[in-house]
């Protein structure tokens, strides 16, 4: 199976081609075909995993070299897929969670006139995402990287009839492209200094040849790409707007898989980041600041999906934070668990939107658990997991990361991360209570989603409940940590001033306290939270507008950009058009004279011809 790993990305590619070419003729079958292919990919990925587990731990790397791709002079790149614990973990998440979301989307997109196209795009996304995680060199990874960006654009703008959707799609594309350009420069730097883009060569031979300065430059450039794709500060502005896309897209691309590609990239390139201590510190700071920033912004949102989008950004911040501390297995554990419960949360939000005819404002929801008991249960499981209530998956992942900050002797980071954990619990309990509990604020009756949409949610909820217990019981000894050890190294042991039991207790107390506070404010009916924006317009404005960074960027980019554009228009109108228009007028004037030469008599033409020939001969003769 290890050599047949190329089948896994090929299946969704076939699905995408079929969907795009025969989308209309396939009808509803397009959805089942797409789901089936990704599901089959998951089965193959499990088979690959079993093969990999059959090998001794230190030999669990297999490179399936498919064909020469580019070979120019000394530059050569193969299309080669790398199967190792890290890539197979990502593959399982992409195909597994991906298949569930595909299944959900069959119900969700049921009435859409472009049903087949939607699934073709989804499959294309899965293909590129698999290329991204399975690539054995940076160039192939970059192809996948740009491919998922394209699919993200197509799917955010899937309902392009809405101007907000099409501009959100453009915003996502352009913003991530800023990071991607830097990342491409990083890849070029790698090639210049190492002479190869293969992971094996770069992390083995190359790592010993790089100076610290070069490694820092490469790592920071790659990080810029990761920041753009993973919506971290300062390139995060596209993610909340990306919620304009259909909800399954938000779940698959903008929560579970694509946005975590940045984390994958940093973990994959950890050798380069470790060569440069600076880059790791930057990762840590970016992650922590993004986590806190997005947590605060999420609390200010009244749009259900935007609140979840900021929570995704905050969670990915935690992943970056863990990566920056060299706690790669922790970052990956959070990535996997987050994929489970965030997909669950988003799809449940999809149920709510479905039931309320696309109402997204939480101020007009409330008390929905009466109408949608199953969805309420799913959302509760997902939210409590994210909040860090044991024994749900999110508890293990987040607690280990926060705890690691303490055991690795980063006290300030630990305090801030604990604050972030508290805020996380607060910001996710808030939509839970606003949507499903408390007083009913909307008039509309909500209808529960049908069974085909509930089935994938049940699976995700199950994974959310058991995922942490199975994969990551402890930071050093969890199954995932042990599995990833050959790729990213063992978790460093450390001693904290507080005992492990104390750290875990603090973590649990914070989470429970946050949920309790959230209940008191948003569900008990004793706090008039709806009046908060009137009483504290300043603070509410800062939170709701995510600290006005969008406005700031508008000032920094749009205003000078528009001014520059206007200046260019003047140049275009006056100078370029002016020259052409003036010239055209001269030609028109001259053409008033020219026709008089055209007498229409053959003999006058012949005479002119003769005189010309004679003149030419004379000229040539006199010159000779």
């Amino acid at each position, binding site marked *: 199976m290890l050599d047949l790993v190329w089948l896994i990305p090929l299946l969704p590619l076939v699905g995408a081609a079929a969907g795009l070419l025969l989308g209309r003729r396939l009808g509803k079958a397009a959805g089942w075909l797409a789901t089936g292919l990704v599901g089959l990919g998951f089965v193959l990925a499990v088979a690959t995993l079993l093969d990999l587990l059959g090998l001794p731990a230190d030999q669990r790397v297999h490179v399936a070299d498919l064909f020469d791709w580019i070979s120019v002079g000394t530059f050569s790149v193969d299309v080669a897929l790398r199967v190792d614990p890290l890539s197979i973990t990502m593959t399982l998440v992409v195909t597994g969670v991906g298949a569930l979301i595909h299944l959900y989307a069959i119900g969700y997109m049921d009435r859409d006139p472009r049903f087949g196209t939607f699934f073709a795009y989804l499959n294309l996304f899965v293909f590129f995402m698999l290329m991204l995680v399975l690539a054995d060199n940076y160039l192939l990874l970059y192809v996948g990287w740009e491919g998922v960006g394209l699919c993200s654009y197509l799917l955010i703008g899937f309902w392009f009839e809405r101007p907000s959707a099409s501009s959100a799609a453009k915003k996502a594309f352009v913003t991530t492209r800023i990071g991607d350009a830097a990342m491409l420069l990083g890849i070029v730097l790698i090639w210049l200094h190492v002479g190869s883009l293969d992971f094996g060569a770069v992390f083995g031979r190359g790592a010993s040849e790089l100076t610290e300065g070069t490694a820092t430059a490469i790592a920071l450039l790659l990080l810029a790409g990761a920041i753009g794709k993973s919506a971290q500060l300062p390139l995060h502005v596209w993610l909340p707007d990306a919620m304009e896309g259909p909800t399954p897209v938000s779940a698959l691309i903008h929560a579970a898989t694509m946005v975590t590609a940045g984390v994958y990239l940093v973990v994959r390139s950890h050798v380069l980041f470790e060569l440069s201590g600076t880059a790791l510190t930057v990762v840590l700071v970016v992650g922590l600041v993004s986590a806190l920033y997005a947590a605060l912004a999420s609390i200010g949102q009244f749009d259900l999906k935007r609140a979840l989008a900021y929570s995704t950004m905050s969670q990915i911040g935690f992943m970056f934070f863990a990566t920056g501390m060299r706690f790669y297995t922790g970052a990956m554990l959070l990535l996997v668990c987050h994929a489970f419960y965030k997909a669950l949360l988003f799809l449940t939000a999809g149920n709510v939107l479905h039931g309320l005819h696309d109402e997204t404002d939480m101020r007009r929801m409330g008390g929905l658990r009466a109408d949608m008991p199953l969805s309420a249960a799913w959302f509760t499981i997902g939210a409590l997991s994210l909040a860090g209530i044991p024994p749900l998956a999110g508890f293990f992942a987040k607690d280990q990361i926060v705890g690691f900050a303490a055991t690795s002797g980063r006290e300030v980071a630990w305090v801030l991360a604990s604050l972030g954990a508290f805020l996380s619990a607060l910001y996710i309990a808030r939509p839970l209570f606003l949507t499903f509990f408390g007083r009913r604020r909307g008039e509309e009756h909500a209808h529960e989603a049908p069974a085909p949409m509930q089935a994938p949610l049940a699976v995700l909820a199950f994974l959310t409940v058991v995922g942490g217990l199975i994969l990551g019981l402890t930071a050093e000894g969890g199954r995932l940590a042990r599995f990833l050890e050959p790729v990213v190294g063992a978790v460093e042991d450390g001693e904290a001033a507080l005992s492990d039991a104390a750290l875990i207790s603090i973590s649990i107390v914070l989470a429970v306290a946050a949920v309790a506070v959230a209940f008191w404010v948003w569900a008990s009916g004793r706090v008039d939270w709806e009046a908060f924006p009137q009483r504290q317009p300043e603070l509410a404005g800062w939170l709701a507008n995510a600290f006005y960074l969008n406005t700031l960027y508008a000032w920094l980019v749009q205003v000078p950009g528009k001014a520059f554009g206007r200046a260019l228009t003047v140049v275009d109108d006056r100078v370029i058009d002016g020259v052409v228009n003036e010239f055209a007028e001269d030609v028109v004037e001259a053409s008033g004279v*020219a026709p008089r030469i055209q007498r*229409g008599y*053959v*003999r006058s033409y*012949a*005479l002119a011809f*003769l005189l010309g020939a004679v003149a030419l001969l004379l000229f040539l003769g006199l010159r000779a």
Partner: protein
Amino acid sequence: MSTPIAYFVAVSAMLFAIGTVGVLIRKNALVIFMSVELQLNAVNLTLVAFSRMHGNLSGQVLAFFSMVVAAAEVVVGLAIIVTVYRRRRSASVDDLTVLRG
């Protein structure tokens, strides 16, 4: 003892001049056409004459080429003149002044 080259050139020049004047002063398209042929053949004559003088066959071969081209051109040219005559009942080039500016 061969004829001096100057005679050939002189005959050729005379033929060419007659042809040129014919093109310039005649009105009938057919006659103009014949004058053009006269010019062409004047040039052919110089080609053959110089070719003989230099003992090089290229000139004579080129003369054949120009005859073939002239023949092809006559086919097209006559066809045009006949068509114009059918439409206008006249072959006078002075009537064909549609292109006057």
